[in-house]
């Protein structure tokens, strides 16, 4: 139901007159531009587009989009967006959240919007820190993260947003990062997916958690550290300019993934897997690959649509209403009734 008619716009049409209030150098600027670049390509209509967010740095996003926007309360954006979508299924909804908003205070709602499969794009900006409250560790902070609330280092195990999403029943899981040129492609795939599309976007918080993603996001050596997945293509990585030199294969004895030497010529013999976006099992493995020995899996990791929640609600309402008349007078007088006769003031039946 997203954008039934192609609408002609440019990036400028999606910018508001509001001054952007993120810290200079924040990764959010890059994501904002990526989204504003993507929407014209989708032929989206600003009047029919709605950005809904919770609380946090990321959740200021709607103020900068010349669309309908609702900046709600901490963690609850998925619930509010569910109500919006059920009330008007034709709206194109983008949910903007962060690691604290979406996985800590709003973790419950995130689970349910995904399992219900409400048709919307969910962008979770993961900067592994609470930014707007001045730098406390978040549910995705790595063990040992030093912050005002964890002065000698955090000791709780971080959540993996994509693993959470897949576990909650998401039918689309994608990953990108703020400054990646591929981010619009992931957003477009998410938009094309009918249902709840979950996109984790690694985002650099330059004030409280600077450059924590540099080990894979930095341009230098990126080819060796990023595995960009494409449906139907072999899982090859390495510097594409020099020709890919490694691939991901399945160790059939241990049922685990492994890195093998491979090239664009010999990947088949090397046993490199072909990405099948509908393969939930491999998707789990790709999401859980430990970074370091493995590259970071990025792009569309999983994409296997099933009927959406709002479609089911509409169909159920239609079924339940079949052959019934919305007659208020009849409804009020339903059940076993009796009449008091005007002449007697006593019941007649």
């Amino acid at each position, binding site marked *: 139901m997203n954008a039934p008619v192609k609408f002609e716009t440019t990036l400028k049409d999606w910018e*508001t007159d*509001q001054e952007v209030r993120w810290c200079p150098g924040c990764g959010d600027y890059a994501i904002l531009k990526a989204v504003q670049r993507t929407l014209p390509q989708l032929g989206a209509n*600003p*009047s*029919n587009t709605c950005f*809904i967010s919770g609380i946090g740095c990321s959740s200021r996003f*709607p*103020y900068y989009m*010349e*669309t*309908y*926007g*609702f*900046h*709600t*309360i*901490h963690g*609850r954006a*998925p*619930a*509010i*967006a*569910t*109500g*919006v*979508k*059920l*009330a*008007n299924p*034709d*709206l194109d909804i983008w949910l903007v959240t962060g690691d604290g908003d979406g996985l800590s205070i709003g973790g*419950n*709602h995130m*689970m*349910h919007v995904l399992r219900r499969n409400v048709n919307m794009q969910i962008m979770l900006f993961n900067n592994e820190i609470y930014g707007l409250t001045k730098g406390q560790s978040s549910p995705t902070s790595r063990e040992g993260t030093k912050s005002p609330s964890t002065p000698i280092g955090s000791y709780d195990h971080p959540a993996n947003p994509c693993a959470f999403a897949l576990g909650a029943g998401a039918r689309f899981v994608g990953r990108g990062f703020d400054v990646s040129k591929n981010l619009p492609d992931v957003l477009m795939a998410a938009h094309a997916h009918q249902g709840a599309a979950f996109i984790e976007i690694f985002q650099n918080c330059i004030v409280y958690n600077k450059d924590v993603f540099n080990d894979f996001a930095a341009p230098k050596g990126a080819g060796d550290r990023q595995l960009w997945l494409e449906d139907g293509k072999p899982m090859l990585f390495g510097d594409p300019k020099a020709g890919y030199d490694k691939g991901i294969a399945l160790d059939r004895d241990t049922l685990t993934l492994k890195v093998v030497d491979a090239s664009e010529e010999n990947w088949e013999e090397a046993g490199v897997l072909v990405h099948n976006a509908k393969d939930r099992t491999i998707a789990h493995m790709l999401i859980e690959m430990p970074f370091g020995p493995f590259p970071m899996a990025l792009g569309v990791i999983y994409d296997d649509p099933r009927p959406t929640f709002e479609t089911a*609600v509409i169909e*159920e*309402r239609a079924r*339940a*209403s079949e052959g*019934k*008349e*919305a007659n*208020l*007078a009849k*409804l*009020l*007088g*339903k*059940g*076993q*009734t*009796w*009449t*008091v*006769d*005007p002449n007697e*003031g*006593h*019941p007649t039946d």
Partner: protein
Amino acid sequence: MASLAKEKPTTAPEAVVVRFAGDSGDGMQLTGGQFTLSTALAGNDLATFPDFPAEIRAPQGTLFGVSAFQINFGSREINTAGDAPDVLVAMNPAALKVNLPSLKPGGLVIIDTGEFSKRNLDKAKYDVSPLEDDTLAKWDVLAFDISALTIEAVKPFGLGNKDALRSKNMWTLGLALWMFDRDRTPIEDWLKAKFKSKPEIADANIAALNAGHAYGETAEIAGPLTKVHVDAVESEPGLYRTITGAEAISLGLVAGAQLAELPMFFGGYPITPASAILHHLARLKEFGVTTFQAEDEIAAICAAIGASYAGQLGITSSSGPGIALKGEAMGLAIMTELPLVIVNSQRGGPSTGLPTKTEQSDLYQAIYGRNGDAPMPVVSACSPGDAFEVAIEACRIAVEYMTPVMLLTDGYIANAAEPWKVPDPETFEPFPAKFLQEKNGGEELLPYKRDEKGARPWIKPGTPDLMHRIGGIEKAVDTGHIDYAPDNHQAMTDARVNKVKGVKVPDQDVALGETSGTLAVVGWGSTFGPIHQAVRRMRAKGCDVSHIHVRHLWPLPANLGDLLKSYDNVLVPEMNTGQFKTVLRDQFLVDATPLTKTSGQPFAIAEMEAAIGKYFDDVSGNEGGQVPVNDDQLPSPEQ
């Protein structure tokens, strides 16, 4: 009250109170419900009080597992479920023990001796069977083996003993129908419909019903049992049905949405005693109703807010603990100025409190219970039938003023039933919602530009070229942009407060009595019935007392302060520790005196009469400031 003395009364009693009590698995609520229906069909006015434990199937035979259903019916106007029963049906020793103290002296107790085994007596903590000592001396007793009689009656249907005993409640109902001269046909029809797919079960139940009825016919010689006929009440001509508070609120909300010409979105989460509203509305989809069972209370209100934002009438419902969880989201609805109805079916608190018992202790929460200066209109229902009108009123205020509104009802109203004159929808005043279609500030869109009522425009996302952003951060006057400036916050706080203050509320009237005098008894919500009856009785004794019932709790009627000041005394009975009393003192500087009760039980009329009596030393028959009340009539403190 009627006396069910051994001789047949020469005149028909005006009103009779009957209480059915048994184990929570005995089907007492069903029995009570069907007896209510037959009472309504017989043309009596009535009020009911279902009183059941929080446990679905509490351990059998225990004192805390007792479930009771009380009904007061009569040939005159009935406002409460009655103080003390005239007839108590006790299906086991525990039910007898818990309910006997409230039975009126000289009243009739009907006992199933089949359940009075040593084991059940132990569970009810009876050392000696009450059938064998003088425990029951004050009352007429009819004790016989209902269990055995039921088994005998359903024998032809080949049920096992366990299944056969399930029909015990129908046997008892049959006896009650005989006692009060009622038609069995509607109950038979109901049983046939209920057990459509299991006709043998329907037949067995009908056989039990008939056997109970026949027993009454033949046992007339046995002593205390007499046939009593209560005349039909004089009532306005028209079509009637019985209705519970939960049904009435659901229907009122459907009517409200229709009058606003809006589809309804209802977000709910299971909680006692509010869930019934979700259940009712889930079956009314043909009225453009969407029901959404959310993952939690917060999601339920948030989804409703989302739906309101998108142009539907968002509604959510819960009870105290759930309302507490919704608090932050209510603030969002106040800040974004979106219509929303929040129904609170109050129960005993704090925390989990008394899930199935009634209380009015969420008034502070309704009026004051949010962060920041967060004004919100509050309305209250006083009876099942009244709940219908109040639900429409809540929808009207929400839509006309672009504001969340809280509707207070309680567990007593939600579950209680009364006859209801079916209203004609043609007589309702519509209040169609308007949506902004084009820019309202020349070239500019001003989402927070207010109309003469102080309400901002409702702008549906999807409307061409009216893109704008709203949220919980303070908004600039008119434009709605983020604005933390001191003057702006002052202006917007004032605008929100003044909008709610300006909600048009009818002038306060006097429910019974005069507009000045010695004493005003001021109530809100479900205390209406006992206050009204007590004031009626005390006025009959010559006391200068009036009843004021307040429906609009926020904002309060503009004339209420002056009205209260025209009485020498103001008494405020409440099922809490005095919350409305505090509001009245604060708003009007009147010396309001509290009369409080937090036992999980509604006020008895006698309690109210005693409290009123203290103001009238000089009234004949009331010397010493005490109404002659028999303490036995008051509910026991154990309850």
